[in-house]
């Protein structure tokens, strides 16, 4: 009576090292991994917000991941709304890093975009630059905060807190891009079958 869906628990292996050209620089990249949110599956339960709080202990009002309502209008004549999970996308060419005057934001070789809070000057340029509203500003400390993809955990072989299978909707996926694409493709196929 086992369940086979989505190969739970999901195992994501760091494959081999690759040589890639990134931002015009040739570099040795340890298998790149991504965080993908399947917003269609999100129920708005905000478990991810609290999982992040438990790990990163951000103070009241500072959210490195947060869920909002999105009203895209009618869907096939039916009123529709979605939840949207907002978090740093660790962009290929992060505009926040471009704009930061003190180089507090950088893209690591493994793809993670890190905001070094100690170097932050509090100018808020990154907050404005981020197209995903994923950078939050702490007025008390006068510094910016964003998701560092739990780089301390990832570095030690642990999944980011929000993606460590806490989500009851299984909508947060961390791992190798190919593996995640396969999962999302299968989910989308099943959803289309039920429509």
């Amino acid at each position, binding site marked *: *009576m086992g*369940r086979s*869906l*989505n190969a*739970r*628990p*999901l*195992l*994501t*292996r*760091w494959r081999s090292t690759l040589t890639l050209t990134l931002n015009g620089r040739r570099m040795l990249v340890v298998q790149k991994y991504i965080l993908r949110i399947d917003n*269609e*599956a*999100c*129920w*708005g*339960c*905000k*478990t991810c*917000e*609290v*999982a992040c*709080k*438990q790990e990163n202990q951000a103070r*009241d*009002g500072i*959210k490195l991941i947060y869920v909002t309502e999105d*009203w895209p209008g009618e*869907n096939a004549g*039916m*009123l*529709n*709304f*979605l*939840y949207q999970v907002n978090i740093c996308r660790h962009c290929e060419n992060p505009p926040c890093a471009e704009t930061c005057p003190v180089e507090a934001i950088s893209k690591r070789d493994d793809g993670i975009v890190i905001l070094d809070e100690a170097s932050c000057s509090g100018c808020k340029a990154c907050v404005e630059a981020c197209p995903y509203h994923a950078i939050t500003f702490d007025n008390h400390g006068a510094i910016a905060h964003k998701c560092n993809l739990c780089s301390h*955990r990832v570095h*030690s*072989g*642990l*999944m980011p807190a929000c993606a*460590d*299978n*806490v*989500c*009851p*909707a*299984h909508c947060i996926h*961390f*791992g190798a891009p190919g593996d995640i694409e396969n999962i999302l493709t299968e*989910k989308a196929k*099943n*959803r289309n*079958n*039920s*429509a």
Partner: protein
Amino acid sequence: MHEFKYANAEREMEFYGYDSVIKSHCRMCHGGCGVLVFVKDGKVAKIAGDQDCPINHGTLCSKGLASAQLAYHPDRLTYPVRRVGPKLSGKWERISWDEALGTIAARILGYKEKYGAESVVFGYGTGRENEAAIYRIANLLGSPNVLTAGHFCYGPRIATSIITCGTNPIIDYENFPKCIMMWGNNVTISNPDCYKGEPFSVALDAGAKLIVIDPRLTRPAARANLWLQLRPGTDAALALGMLNVIVNEELYDKDFVNNYTYGWDDFVKRVNEYPLERVEAITWVPREKIREAARLFAVTKPAAVQWGVAIEQQINCADNDRLLMFLMGLTGNIDVPGGQVLFKAPPIVNVGRFGAHDKLPQEQAAKRLGGERFRLAGQFAIINPKAVWDAVLDEEPYPVKMLFFISSNPVLTRANAREVYRALEQVDFMAVSDFFMTPTAELADIVLPASTWLEMDYIGDFWKRHGYILPRRKVVQVGECRSDHEMLNDLAHRIGQGEYWWDSFESGLDYILEPLGITWQEFKQIDYVRGEVKYKKYKEKGFSTPTRKFELYSTVLEKMGYDPLPQHREIPESPVSTPDLYEEYPYILITGARQPGFFHTENRQIPWLRELHKDPQVEIHPETAAKEGIKEGDWVIIESPRGKVRQRAKLFAGIDPRVVAAQHAWWYPERKEPGHGWDESNINILTDNGYEGCDPAMGATNVRALLCRIKLELGN
């Protein structure tokens, strides 16, 4: 190179330097989810889901993850206290457990002697896995009065399923229902007793079709194949309409109907009283949509109804439950894989036996408050709250002198809150066991510090009907807090019940497990025990009802003098039943839609959870808001004939412009005065609790749909 895997406990231990990890069983709601608790320096340091748990498969919710903030909250009550000033003076002094329980015991024995055991009422709120121990002490004392949420929450599902098909039919998510009808419920953010959101999500992602019945556009409703936006409180009519389609289009399971049901002909006559034109007029749902939903549900196999509490907090409580069971049964989805299964519990001493109901003398059971009026409830040891308030305030039919609330906050959660408050102010003696000084606890004489789930050994999910039991293992001790079971075990000895209890409650756990042939210490070593899984058991033995059939026509209700067939009753206050009042109060108010992070009155002091919802919100359609001059975020006064409260406007297009939806159970723990703002946003100030508005069989109070008016608060 790293190999990632979920909840890698070994690596967590290494990386964070935790001292230990303990597998346990969360109870931030009714219980259910398997968890890993990481401990460092004797304190809970992190909580994660248990990937091997068959209930949650490693996932958790915001409440479970925030449990340590509950356990170590600075406002937590960590020793017993006695009130030293008048009620609401907020003056308390620390006392010992010995003095606290000694005082409570003396009061219990004194009232029993002078007014009879029935003058002592024990109470709990929603199910927190202490109910069997509470019934045990009450029954052994001779009090038939245990005040719970059972009249309008889960109790009706148990009572009506027992009289219809023998036990509560639980969705077999493991075997992937192909069609799910989610009725007045949102399992993705709530915990409707035996269910979690995770298996529902997985079934949906595996391709199940979804029908949602809800006056509000929930996210599942937005994602559904069909959303039926009914007029609040008309669930029974809608279900009768669907059954009408299923009967007249012969979409039912003929073998099941012919061989395993009782009362088919009478039932068919009844559903024929509900043609779709009539149902459309009652429910506001277009008849074609009703027909489409009935067909989709009936022809897709296996199919299941995901139900919850909303349909029970209405005048049609018992009939709503029965009608949804009829939808399950007549479509052939009872006791089949992927349908709704009459699961068997493992062989243990069940909640009924542990509750010692057989020890309550007949003449005492006959005194159950409201038992003559609400006869189905009475048979299941359930009472209607107003019956208790009346007995306190008017001493009718006899005086109630003592209330002992264990994990209950009735001034927020019971209808007609001002009456509840008066009763609690007036009662001769009141004890409370809770985590915090709640608005209810502030009215007590003695308050006891209760353990959270992190601080107790217990057999988790012992009362549920999904067939699993799981060990809840004690992780830490906080202050002098005691689990409700340990506290009651101690108290029982002090009131002369020693022979029925144990030296320590661990032996009580051994007693529960005895038929399984293991002790608590042995149970602790395993992950879970599941009862035998078998389908279509009724083919051999019939159903466990008086006729051995699935009773469409209830022989039990008939004997009690009720209509044996389900019907639609108009809710007590509505555009239809009270048109004059509707002119003054021109909106239908629905209450109690769940908020992730909160569990009824709980968690508004937990920082990570309060951060999810700072203020109470009332949902108003943008057109209605414009008409009333209300903007997003404005404070709004919501008023019914009983009173008024304030909540913040949330403009929400997913609701009918004639309906507004307010949140329930709001108080403000951050306000330090003894009332803690209990009546400022508490929606039960507005609800009514008159007997005539309650379900005639269960005594369920109608708190979900009433009439109101709204206006912008001055000074916004």
